[in-house]
């Protein structure tokens, strides 16, 4: 079964539109949703959770149509962390726990208290006095404490210091050890996604440019470093994007490995390289 299936989704706003978005996240995998600010990542998440109605197309989560009445039940199985933790500012972590215990049928108070301790979160301090990192940790603790099968994380690791971020990524990794557990995570920290994800989906101005297995992406692309003349000698189809290397008169380019001569030495491309070259990389 697929954890997420978006099929030909359209949604228009003044000045922005999601166009023909089809995306599948197989159950048991982690998919990273990448894109610039305003690319449509948060809108996609809202469409997925039926917080927005699409103009066209269908969204299914854990096999259930998001527009169907049964979808409310599915929300019990989905832990969501948005780009901000939107809890009312006067609530304390203990009060949030009590409210969530009345919200989710499978709320596990022991798990929640365990995360509060693990994240070193104060129990009685009002939410408004939390730092951004503490707020995100509270949101993550809530998302993980009602036995979800799917986590949807919108910039959930932003604002966390590198040590906590690493710990949180490890928690997400642990979560997907259960074979029916899946994660959709959007982040600007591409190195995190490279560490964590099985799939990378790249959204650009409301359109999905690609969604592919991370390992296949890394195998498909390489970084060419050399002179402009050497680059010009390659087939046009091989080069996806290039940049001048300042001060050396050379160039750096993202190329398709299978399109370049076998002996040509290429550097390993990171996910960040691939995304950046695709966004900036008008071929010259």
């Amino acid at each position: 079964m697929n954890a997420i299936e978006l099929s030909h989704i359209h949604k228009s706003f003044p000045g922005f539109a999601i166009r023909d978005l089809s995306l599948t996240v197989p159950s048991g995998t982690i998919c990273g949703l990448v894109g610039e600010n305003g690319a449509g990542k948060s809108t996609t998440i809202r469409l997925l959770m039926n917080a927005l109605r699409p103009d066209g197309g269908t969204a299914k989560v854990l096999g259930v149509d998001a527009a169907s009445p049964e979808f409310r039940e599915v929300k019990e199985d989905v832990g969501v962390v948005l780009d901000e933790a939107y809890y009312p500012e006067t609530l304390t972590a203990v009060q949030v726990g009590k409210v969530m215990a009345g919200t989710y049928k499978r709320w596990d108070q022991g798990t929640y208290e365990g995360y509060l301790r693990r994240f070193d979160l104060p129990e009685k301090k009002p939410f408004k006095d939390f730092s951004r990192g503490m707020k995100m940790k509270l949101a993550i603790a809530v998302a993980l404490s009602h036995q979800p099968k799917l986590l949807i994380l919108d910039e959930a690791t932003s604002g966390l210091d590198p040590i906590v971020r690493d710990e949180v990524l490890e928690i997400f990794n642990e979560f997907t050890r259960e074979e029916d557990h899946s994660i959709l995570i959007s982040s600007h920290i591409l190195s995190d996604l490279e560490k964590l994800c099985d799939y990378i989906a790249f959204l650009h101005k409301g359109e999905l440019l690609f969604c592919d297995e991370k390992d296949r992406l890394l195998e498909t692309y390489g970084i060419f470093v050399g002179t402009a003349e050497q680059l010009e000698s390659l087939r046009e189809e091989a080069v996806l994007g290039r940049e001048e290397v300042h001060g050396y008169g050379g160039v750096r380019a993202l190329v398709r490995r299978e399109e370049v001569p076998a002996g040509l030495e290429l550097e390993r491309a990171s996910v960040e390289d691939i995304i950046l070259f695709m966004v900036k990389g008008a071929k010259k």
Partner: protein
Amino acid sequence: MKALIQKDFYVIWKQMRIFVVIILLLSIMNSAFNIVFLVVWCSMLPYTAMAYDERSHWNQLAAMMPYSKRDIVLSKYVLGWLCMAAATLISAVLQVAAFKFTHEAPTLSALAMSFLGGLIALDLTLPTVFRFGVERGRWGFMIIVFGVAILGGAVAGIADELPSVPMPALALLPLAAVAATAVSIPLSMKLYRVN
């Protein structure tokens, strides 16, 4: 829905504490206007909760949770009803208790009327606020609430001379409250949007 009401009680608890003190003070001063003002003011507490929701963008998060639109809308009505019912009940108990010392007759009819007036004020104002949010819906809301409070206070002032007031008109007030609620809740559900 219970969880949403619980959340709102946590959020407005500071105001509630002040409110309980005000109930005590106003109930001792046994005046019809005070009672109407008290109960109608109580009907405003859901807006305090909504203002906090709006400021924290809680509704965006709530849209991701297993709450229905019905739960979200109805919870604000129930919160208003609970606050008004509590104020009416505490006020009635205090007035009856005070009667032993002051020998001033409790104005229970004024209390009942102000409770019904508060219900109608809530029914009239909540749909606008669900549509436009607390900030933008504030002016319409203030006009309606104070209009109802002043009118209610004036009517309650003559409540002791009930025989001179046509009975059908008084009997209509509970009916009006029920009818307004029956229209207001579906309207709020239709107008509700995540701000």
